[in-house]
């Protein structure tokens, strides 16, 4: 009796299990390019997209008025041309003949609806906060739209990269998870939650049908597994989110073409300027001199970064070339600490000048970097207590100012107005991201001017002064600018990486037949 009961249980389990498998079979259509990504995009609707993957995938589905090219220069996407009538008024002429994926023509009414929908508080759009300077959006004709601002706001064009949805598209509250159609080079075909997102080429895209029949974004959370999938040939393209150690393995063991490019992602050490020790400028300069950036980049990051001297990378139009790098100079660091009144109590002995905590996330790479920084700080007599946290807890602490030192990165820096958000005295949390409570009247004045100034030459001069002050004052200790790493199969042709990791060049990418394959 028992073996029969047991066998019955086993058989039922097997049947249930296999029936589950049959229902979940999902094949990749032939000719589609497969891109490995780390996590599911949270919201593809451009009115709600905040995470990087939502923006990157969404930018292929939704066209926007403007876009940035791979040299970070503006070009018209839906906008045929645009004018700044005065520092508070922008007028855009929209291309005629652009259609949404459902065949409807895109007009100025759709642009107005998209922005009005974002500005409506009931719709809970995260884009509303940054757009608070927008006073009104007026439709001047079927293909002409005017934006009026409540004050001159030089970085306004950045907000013209929001994807356009059709007029009367349901909001998140009204429409559940149904995604409104876009007008970009690809249309959404299918979302398998937690598994993959499939896009198909838009045959009526205004620039012509993309060469690829479609794209598959394969969600593979583990970095090593993404690399193994690439080796197996089930992923054609990986961009960033690659463990530095695996790059050399890929070079030796696969047919990968690996390209690294200067990126704009800025990794820094955040400083709590209300701390009695850290509010001393000499201490912050000593910290900057005590870090061997080249060593960390060479040995831990495997060369996938360049030492940073400030927030804006050399690719940025406002980057000040005269700003020098912070050298690794422990002797000078010790000297500065002595001058600041923090003498080493026993020279090279075990006692330290002072102790600080350093918070970071529990990601293995971040932990290794933190341990290295701890050793480097010990070299100048500072004890760094490394504390690693799960992301939510870590970020909550940083927002509350509950830290001495921490490490984070700014991703996708474009307009230098970011200085206002992170260093202006009006930007202390919760009003902005000045988490270290940096307060400098000269910086406040300069970033306010920079925000209002529409002449780019004059703006560059203003932000040049900001960079010089930052270099001396060090409210952030610059670490490095991460490089963009692209790993692709040889048959992937025409992909151009963007400094901020955008994937828009997939619209012109094609997939050659692999030699020896059908």
């Amino acid at each position: 009796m028992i073996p029969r009961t047991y066998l019955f249980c086993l058989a039922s389990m097997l049947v249930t299990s296999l029936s589950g498998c049959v229902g979940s079979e999902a094949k990749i259509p032939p000719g589609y390019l497969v891109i490995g990504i780390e996590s599911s995009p949270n919201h593809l609707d451009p009115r709600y997209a905040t995470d990087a993957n939502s923006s990157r995938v969404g930018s292929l589905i939704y066209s926007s008025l403007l876009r940035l090219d791979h040299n970070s220069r503006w070009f018209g996407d839906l906008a045929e041309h645009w004018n700044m009538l005065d520092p508070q008024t922008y007028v855009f002429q929209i291309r005629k003949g652009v259609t949404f994926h459902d065949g409807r023509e895109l007009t100025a009414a759709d642009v107005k609806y998209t922005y009005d929908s974002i500005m409506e508080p009931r719709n809970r759009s995260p884009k509303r906060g940054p757009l608070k300077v927008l006073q009104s959006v007026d439709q001047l004709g079927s293909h002409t739209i005017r934006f009026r601002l409540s004050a001159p706001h030089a970085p306004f064009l950045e907000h013209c990269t929001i994807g356009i949805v059709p007029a009367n598209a349901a909001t998140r509250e009204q429409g559940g998870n149904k995604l409104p159609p876009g007008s970009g080079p690809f249309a959404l075909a299918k979302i398998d939650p937690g598994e993959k997102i499939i896009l198909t080429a838009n045959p009526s895209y205004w620039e012509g049908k993309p060469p690829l029949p479609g794209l598959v974004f394969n969600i593979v959370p583990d970095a090593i597994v993404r690399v193994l999938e690439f080796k197996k040939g089930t992923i054609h393209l990986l961009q960033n989110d690659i463990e530095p150690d695996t790059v050399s393995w890929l070079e030796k063991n696969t047919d990968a073409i690996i390209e690294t490019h200067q990126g704009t992602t800025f990794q820094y050490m955040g400083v709590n300027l209300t701390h009695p020790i850290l509010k001393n400028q000499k201490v912050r300069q000593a910290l900057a001199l005590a870090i061997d950036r080249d060593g960390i980049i060479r040995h831990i990051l495997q060369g996938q970064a360049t030492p940073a001297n400030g927030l804006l990378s050399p690719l940025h139009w406002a980057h000040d070339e005269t700003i020098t790098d912070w050298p690794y100079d422990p002797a000078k660091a010790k000297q500065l600490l002595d001058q600041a009144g923090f003498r080493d109590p026993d020279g090279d002995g075990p006692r330290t000048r002072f102790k600080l905590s350093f918070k970071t996330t529990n990601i293995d790479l971040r932990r290794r970097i933190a341990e290295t920084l701890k050793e480097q700080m010990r070299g100048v007599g500072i004890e760094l207590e490394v504390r690693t946290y799960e992301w939510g807890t870590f970020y909550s602490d940083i927002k509350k100012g509950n830290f001495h030192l921490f490490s984070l990165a700014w991703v996708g820096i474009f307009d230098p107005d970011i200085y206002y958000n992170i260093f202006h005295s009006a930007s202390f949390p919760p009003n902005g991201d000045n988490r270290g409570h940096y307060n400098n009247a000269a910086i406040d004045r300069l970033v306010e001017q920079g925000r209002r100034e529409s002449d780019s030459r004059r703006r560059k001069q203003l932000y040049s002064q900001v960079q010089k002050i930052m270099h001396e004052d060090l409210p952030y200790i610059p670490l490095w600018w991460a490089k963009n790493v692209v790993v692709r199969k040889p048959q992937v042709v025409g992909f151009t990486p963007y400094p901020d990791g955008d994937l828009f060049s997939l619209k012109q990418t094609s997939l050659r037949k692999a030699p020896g394959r059908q």
Partner: protein
Amino acid sequence: MKRYILHRLLLLAPALFGALTLVFFLIHLVPGDPVEVMLGETASAVDKGELRRQLGLDQPLMIRYAGFLAGLARGDLGKSLYENASVSELVGARLPATVELTLSAMIVAVAIAFPLATLAAIKRDSWIDRGALFFSLLGLSLPNFWLGPLLMITVSIQLGWLPVSGRGGFSHLILPSLTLGMAMAAILTRILRASLLRIVNMDYIKAARAKGLGEPAVWLKHMLRNALLPIVTIMGLQFGSLLAGSIITETIFSWPGIGRLTVQAIQTRDYPLVQGCVLVVATSYLVVNFFTDIIYKLVDPRISYEK
């Protein structure tokens, strides 16, 4: 028996209530703010306050707890804070993948453990026995985050036999099931072997042999049946652990199950979704253990639940 079943069913409710209460307070006490994630850092304090009010996050914790219980009583698990879908819908979409993986891991564990333990007990102190013990030691010592990639590299990459990760056909199921089921196979092998060796010299076994029964009949009908009781207990407990503990395996193998959904919900502080995931896992655990108790009676008719 009926009274016992009713009694056990009634006990399920407080156990479930306790688990959900604990999770409700723990997740709300952990630092982190879903409104920050939803509206972004640049949202004004007024907008953040308004959203907090709309979501009921401005209410005292006890009022929110009461609301949560009231919803639960109506069978309403609430709406995810980010996905704009009901929690039951989201959990329901991911549950089949986790059940599929857990059941397959169980099958793998049983398929490995039963023949191996039986052979080890028959050939006690032989190389097979020592091999089985070594295997069980190995199975218990190898963590999933190491075994998974190792299997991928050897079976998928070097031999090219199976896909690396993802959910698809039967071939996609083999490696994650092996990874998840290995530790359970190791435990079952050890316990079943010990259980069989405990009864191998019992009088009723000697009597069965003296009756002239063949060795397969002695082992299958008399020994295995009597050795099954501890195995049923372990399988019941382990099934719940597999269900709840498949997070690492699901992450490694890009398996779209409840485990990954739970991690994602915790990271974004999606309180209703975390509670929904915990409810499903806790219920499964309790239900499986409830059935384990019932199966005892089937396995060993001497067990009586009547007073």
